[in-house]
């Protein structure tokens, strides 16, 4: 497999950086789920037009899954895996990566008790957890046309006496499933800073000759934790770590810098170009042979099985109260409060990005604290959804039921839902509202509360005109 080089993970909003740094990028990594839409008929569709625009970008392509992890007892979604596989062939990627984490809790109790967590959570790191992860990795790998590499995640929880070390767990999964590894150096540095164990101890246990890809990112401290926030450039400690580690990875083929779209406006292209140049210098043409990883015998691990772990941690993370012994024990870990906050912020972000005018109206009427409380109340009643639009539909249902005292809310909500439906499938929609919709959209679009907008009966036909400019060509799963 040839070396791809140094590059950037693409997310919408990074276009300026990609354009200005294009001559320094050997590879662009694409997160497939960010090109998917959950259509009103329940199918998942790929936005091929957005993908087509990626064809103009420089370098090779890689695919990095962000919604279908392989570290839990619930097998990865087969339809989503198939979509990734199609895309892998279309983009001619040499491998695909996913996270060694879980984001779904199974329906163990029956009666529809399964739920999504809205976040990647750390798996149960025991021999039984290894077996579940190996099963999930194999299920995905067998359905893909190219090899699979799994990423070691950030884990904010305190280390536990009844679990394998992070390195031992990842090593056993990679070897058991015979898959590649994606070593996110920011993740492992964050884990070290957060007290889970040293990076060197982790590296000593990993089969370094399986590492195909390395990620770097920036973060920041929050509530005493170093967050894997992808919020900017890597710090100097991380660059030094890359300098130590890259020469030890004989199978390494790509080094990617990850940054969120939210952070992109604050990033200077010159700094990104400098970063890619430094990473090239740190990555020698030939790596030293990887040392044999340390092997410790599997500990005799009593206690919770993977399913119980996932139900407990998943439930706590989405805000449920602890009931079992394991849940009470986990709830004492301050990381649970952090996870709750991150998940809630994530869900609030999904709503701000989909129900744009509704969230602005709520903010202008209730203030930020009031809206946060409204969303928190919603989140206590409803577990997270995978797609931002599904979260939006569920929140709209909540608003209709709880009817907060916010003038104009029903009309603004109708407008937002109509716009969202048209964006999703391109079909025109007509919404009927009791307030002049042009005034509502213009005022809220400017961040102003509409004052005495004209009232009456208004029918607004919403149409998709993106066809002329290249309407998203959506194909179903």
């Amino acid at each position, binding site marked *: 497999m040839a070396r791809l080089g140094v590059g950037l993970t693409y997310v919408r909003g990074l276009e300026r950086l990609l354009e200005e740094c294009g001559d320094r990028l050997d590879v662009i990594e694409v997160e497939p789920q960010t090109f998917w839409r959950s259509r009103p008929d329940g199918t998942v569709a790929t936005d091929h037009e957005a993908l087509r625009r990626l064809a103009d970008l420089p370098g090779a392509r890689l695919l990095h899954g962000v919604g279908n992890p392989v570290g839990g007892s619930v097998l990865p979604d087969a339809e989503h895996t198939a979509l990734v596989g199609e895309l892998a062939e279309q983009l001619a990627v040499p491998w695909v990566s996913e996270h060694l984490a879980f984001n779904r809790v199974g329906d163990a109790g029956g009666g529809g008790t399964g739920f999504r967590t809205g976040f990647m959570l750390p798996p149960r790191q025991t021999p039984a957890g290894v077996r579940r992860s190996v099963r999930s990795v194999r299920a995905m790998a067998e359905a893909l046309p190219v090899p699979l590499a799994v990423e070691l*995640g950030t884990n904010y929880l305190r280390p536990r006496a009844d679990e394998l070390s992070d390195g031992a767990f990842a090593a056993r999964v990679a070897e058991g499933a015979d898959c590649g590894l994606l070593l996110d150096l920011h993740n492992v540095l964050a884990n070290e800073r957060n007290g889970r164990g040293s990076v060197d101890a982790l590296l000593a246990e990993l089969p370094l000759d399986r590492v195909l890809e390395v990620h770097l990112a920036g973060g920041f401290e929050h509530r005493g934790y170093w967050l894997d926030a992808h919020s900017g450039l890597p710090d100097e400690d991380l660059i030094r770590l890359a300098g130590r580690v890259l020469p030890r990875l004989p199978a390494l083929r790509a080094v990617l810098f990850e940054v969120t779209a939210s952070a992109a*406006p604050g990033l200077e292209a010159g700094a990104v170009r400098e970063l890619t140049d430094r990473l090239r210098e740190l990555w020698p043409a030939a790596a030293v042979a990887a040392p044999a990883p340390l092997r410790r015998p599997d500990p005799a691990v009593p206690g919770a099985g993977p399913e119980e772990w996932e139900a407990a941690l998943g439930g706590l993370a989405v805000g449920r109260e602890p009931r079992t012994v394991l849940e009470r024990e986990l709830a004492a870990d301050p990381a649970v409060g952090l996870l709750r906050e991150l998940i809630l912020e994530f869900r609030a972000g999904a709503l701000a990005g989909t129900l744009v005018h509704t969230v602005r109206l709520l903010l202008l009427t209730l203030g930020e604290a009031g809206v946060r409380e409204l969303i928190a109340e919603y989140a206590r009643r409803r577990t997270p959804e995978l797609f931002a639009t599904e979260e939006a539909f569920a929140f709209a249902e909540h608003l209709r039921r709880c009817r907060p005292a916010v003038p104009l809310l029903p009309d603004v909500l109708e407008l937002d839902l109509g716009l969202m439906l048209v964006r999703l499938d391109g079909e025109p929609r007509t919404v009927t509202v009791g307030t002049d919709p042009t005034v509502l959209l213009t005022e809220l679009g400017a961040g102003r509360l509409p004052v005495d907008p004209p009232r009456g009966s208004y029918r607004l036909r919403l149409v998709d005109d993106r066809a002329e400019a290249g309407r998203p060509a959506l194909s179903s799963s």
Partner: protein
Amino acid sequence: MSSTTLVAAAPVETTLSLSAAAGLDRMAAPVRAAVNQDNCPSCHSGFDWSFGRSAEFTLGGSGLAGLAG
């Protein structure tokens, strides 16, 4: 409001295109691109800034209704 963005079919019946609707949103373009999303978001293990950015645009940093600007 620009007459080019909305086309009135009748006094109270109006047609609005997605691009016209997007054109009415005055949030700065790079931030809007970073915040608006219909997809499966990139749920890494960090912080999502979208709601905060939306609140900042709307309330001007005060966080309080009625004090924007």
